[in-house]
């Protein structure tokens, strides 16, 4: 009976997010990375989530944290890292996996997203190991960069 009560309370509390689409998106939305080198983010409401990989080499599971609005961060930009930087460093610096969760906010959420892209990328220097170890190849990057640049509008 106690367990039933707990479940009922949880269902009541989180009924607004327990739609099928929400459940599916929570299970299957693994986030994405940006194609570019770095991205400056400035947003007036929370919603952006970043995957924290810290400690995964010691067995800790990655987890998401939600970033507050820029005002709560002193007006600062959040700077995340993209695929181009990962390729240039042979994934020594992995691209930031992120996603947006739509929250039940009373007002609209606006974000200013500035992508700083590289003109070109080259294989990483020897210090980062041989080329090709990164998850994305130069060719993949180029295809995606051009696609994002000219086609997806």
């Amino acid at each position: 009976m106690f367990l039933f009560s707990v479940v009922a309370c949880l269902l009541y509390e989180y009924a607004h997010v327990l739609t099928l689409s929400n459940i599916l998106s929570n299970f299957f939305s693994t986030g994405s990375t940006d194609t570019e080198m770095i991205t400056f983010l400035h947003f007036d409401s929370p919603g952006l989530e970043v995957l924290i990989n810290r400690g995964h080499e010691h067995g800790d599971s990655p987890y998401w944290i939600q970033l507050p609005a820029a005002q709560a961060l002193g007006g600062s930009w959040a700077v995340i890292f993209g695929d181009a930087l990962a390729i240039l460093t042979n994934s020594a610096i992995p691209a930031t996996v992120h996603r947006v969760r739509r929250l039940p906010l009373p007002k609209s959420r606006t974000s200013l997203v500035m992508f700083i892209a590289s003109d070109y990328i080259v294989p990483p220097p020897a210090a980062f190991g041989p080329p090709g170890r990164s998850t994305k190849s130069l060719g993949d990057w180029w295809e995606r960069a051009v696609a994002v640049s000219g086609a997806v509008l």
Partner: protein
Amino acid sequence: MASWVGYDEISSTDMENSNGDQLDDVLLDLSPRPYWRPEPASTHSDWRLILHRDTEEQVVTGGILVVAFAGLGNSDKPAYEFESVLKRYPQTHKLFLRDSNLQWYVPNRKWFASVIRAASAASGATKLVFFGASAGGWGALLLQALFFPEAHVAAFSPQAFLDAATRVNEEDDRWAPYVNHLNKCSCSGAVNDDESTVAGMPLNLLHDVSLAVAAPSPQRPPPRVEVHYNLNHYLDARHATYLRRLEFEPRKDCESMPTVLRVRCVPHDGPVGDEAHALAKHLRNHGVLVHILDAFLLGVVDNRRCGIGSLATTLPITKSTAESTLPHSSSATATDSGDTNVDNSMDSKYDISQEATPCAEETPLVDYEDVNGILVPRFDLDLLCAALQSRPSGDVAISTRDEPCLRPALPDAALSAARYALSEVGFFLLRPSSDESELSESGDHANFPSFSPATEQRVAECYAQCAAMAAMPLAQKQDSWSLEAARARGLLGGWRRGETDLIYCDSFRCAVEDVPVSLDSVKDRNKSKSSEKGLDSSATNTNESVPNVAPSAADVTAAAMSGRGGCLGKCHLWPEPHVLPGFRDALHGYAQALSGDAGPAVLGLLEEALCLPRDYLSSKCSPGNALSYLTTRVYPPASPGDDSAAGTLGMRMQ
């Protein structure tokens, strides 16, 4: 005691004042060195101790005990290493170790640890410093991690892993007979070490050895651990890259400085070819090694650069204390061939007569923000730009004769924070500029507007314009500024309704420079650029058929000037000024300011943090290039009857 080898080494000619009798009592309890070797047993002694004594031949207790781990060497009998260069420090105690079994100090690690403990007790040393190159570097790191977490380590071209699986994965087949023996040896009973089974062998510094034991406590400053490697030696660089994962130890008990620099990986532009692995020898021959050791020992003395978290416990070092504690002797001269190239003119950089400055506990360049339980570095754009202006030209992080490697442009706290953000957090924060005039003068891209003192006002203007755009009738946006409308005019659309995922939003996109570019010109440039880039020519990605060059601002401008048509993400359809006054100026100005100021500053920070040559990243990101752009997104509020969308996730969204 007859089986104790190495006792006679104490009274060697290298240490005239040494007195083995004084050590006898100390070392009596040591067991004989166990045997472990694929070949017949070695009878070599594996240690040699030189104590610092005063003029009356009394051991001067305290100070530093330097332990030099020898590598494999080129002969059957490894030679002690760092002997000549350590003569520069007569005020230190010195213990030279070698593993005659050529087994990387692994099977007999406890025995070597007992030797170090005995030597430490005999000398009364308060600080341990380990030096080693190649296998010696591995030994230094291993012993420090396993037994001496307080020891400071400078390793040159060390191995980070010896286990077969990682070696195969990294294609490292060096010293195969010895390493294979270490991996597969079933020398049961051959070693006087109850942990000498293969399964118990620590053969991987990342997985088998927890360097976390070296993490500091409030009572003990963190050790200073440096890994010097040759950028031009692929496998050594791989090992260093492996160790780089251990660079930072997050600290949750220190809010202002939450990271500890656990391992500092220092790249060097060393030799190529057969001599590439012999980095220490190269540095010694070029007079750099002594300066590295000077700086290292000086740092050990005053706890400088020992880790960000240790700075709070660091006491200011005065001239007198520095002179009395530093084990360096300027009068010491190198007498053997190994130190003939010492450049005394460089001593001023590490001159102990200069008043040592206390470590700065914090730098205003960076602080930390608690973001839902994660401490995230926040850099100040103004101070970052100013600091990067002082960067010398050339490869700042690569040591040369004129510029030793330990001279980054940014303070350690900033480097540590950036590396922490890169490797642990995945993002960082950037505080906006506050002084337009200063930025305008210091910025490299004067043609782009800097952020004004009223940065908040500019940002607020962008938000207002985005809201105004979102409030426009949907039909008008689709008809006037969408992709379809733009195509009809030979342009690209600025407005779109983002609905690629579960979240839809009102989006507008603009490029930094809004001029046309010819795709043909891009292709032509790709061909020429590929042949121009030195790195491209040396690249081994021969399978890449896709060009790795994209148009830059110069190409865009050139294409525009030439009058060739065709847009590549450049020509956007803006709303007319009378419809949305100020829209274009607000967004375009914001994009240009970020691209011109903040972008190069952040890339410079990353170059410093990654020990990359200056402009390595920023040279590839010309401001306003074709692929840089600003996207604004306005997500509508969740209406009372629209709960279904709340909580949904979007992947390609910010």
